[in-house]
């Protein structure tokens, strides 16, 4: 009997916890039209300077973001084990061939990955733009990355103009890169 009682109490507590969580969610949803200064400026969504970094590339050379000021840069975070990352690569490659000659710099950064797997992924998907592994995870941290694939569009002044979480399409990349050229 005592067991049944405490079980009921636990379930009640758990349901109460869930109800509180849903109530908070509902409250936040109802605040959609509240004054915007309640939730002030986010970082990367607005125009912010793209954190500078140096990355060792898989071909043995180095990439320094700061040395590409004056050119639009597209940075794609990916991983060999990420399903949508493989799916978007043909579209990115097409855009590389279209916009590379127009001065856009492309970079792939593999996260949570090993060198062998990243290299195999690059070969498998015929990636021609420079890519490296963020082994120390410092670049991920600097960009506040949560989830892959994520693509950043950086303007000529070195500001993040836009970022997209999830697979990118050719149209989306054209739309964003045209704004930067």
């Amino acid at each position, binding site marked *: 009997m005592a*067991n049944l009682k*405490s*079980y009921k109490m*636990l*379930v009640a*507590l*758990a*349901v109460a*916890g*869930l109800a509180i*969580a849903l109530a908070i*969610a*509902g409250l*936040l*949803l109802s*605040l*959609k039209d509240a004054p*915007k200064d309640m*939730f*002030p*400026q*986010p*970082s*990367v*969504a*607005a125009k912010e300077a793209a954190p500078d970094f140096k990355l060792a590339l898989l071909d043995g050379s180095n990439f320094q973001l700061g040395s590409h000021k004056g050119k639009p840069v597209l940075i794609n975070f990916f*991983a*060999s*084990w*990420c*399903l*949508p*990352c493989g799916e978007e690569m043909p579209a990115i490659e097409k855009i590389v061939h279209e916009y590379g000659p127009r001065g856009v710099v492309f970079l792939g950064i593999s*996260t*949570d*990955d*090993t060198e*062998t*797997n990243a290299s195999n992924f690059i070969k498998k998907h015929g990636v021609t733009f420079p890519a490296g592994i963020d082994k120390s*995870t410092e670049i*991920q*941290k600097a960009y*506040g990355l*949560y*989830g*892959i*694939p*994520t693509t950043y569009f950086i303007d000529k002044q070195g500001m993040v103009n836009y*970022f*997209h*979480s*999830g*697979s990118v399409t050719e149209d989306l990349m054209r739309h964003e890169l045209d704004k930067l050229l």
Partner: protein
Amino acid sequence: MGGGAALWGGFSSFFSIWQVCILQISPFFIAFIVGTYLATPARETDARILRWIVPPCIAFGVGFNLFYSLLIASGLSFSRPLITNLGSLRIVAGTVILLASLHIFLVNRSPFLGKMHRPLPLSGLALLLGISFALIYSPCITPMLSDIMGLASQRATAQEGLVLAGFYGIGITLALCLVAVALTLLLGKNATALRHADAIKNACGVVLLALAIMNLTGLMRHYKAFVLGFVL
């Protein structure tokens, strides 16, 4: 997109090819629930099992979804400290997972842990574990999650994105908990499994210990690259 669609998106992703990405957390949560059950004093074999595992499952879901949706809602100012300190927070998460694994290992050997092995304290541990799993998780962004993150990353729509991310996360945790509960109920009815309960419990502890070590040492990328890559 509504909350129901987001919930279904998360739930169905668990039973689809996207499970490959959820493998970062799913086997470890199941190990926690199974280990928790097998460490119970009586190992009840009927519906009373639920008393031990349902509240921790719900607590895990609350912890996971709270932090998962906050991490996705990058457009909110109060999400930023979480996102920018994710590296340090993952170390804390690794420590919590280490404590959970030690609990499962030592619960039958330590009178203090034995006393703590009750549904309510276990729910507290599960809540912390849920938060930890949200912190160590690197979601693969499904098309639906991409739409949600698109909303969540913009200041004007971040709150809507936060709520939808919450529903999406509830879908994932609901599926995860259903599988864990079903597996535990099956184990509870299996005489062979119950005969080897200690060994299985210790194996669950080892699985959690491995996750803790991988997170504390940075080896998690090898797990992702080899195990998840192998499945793909």
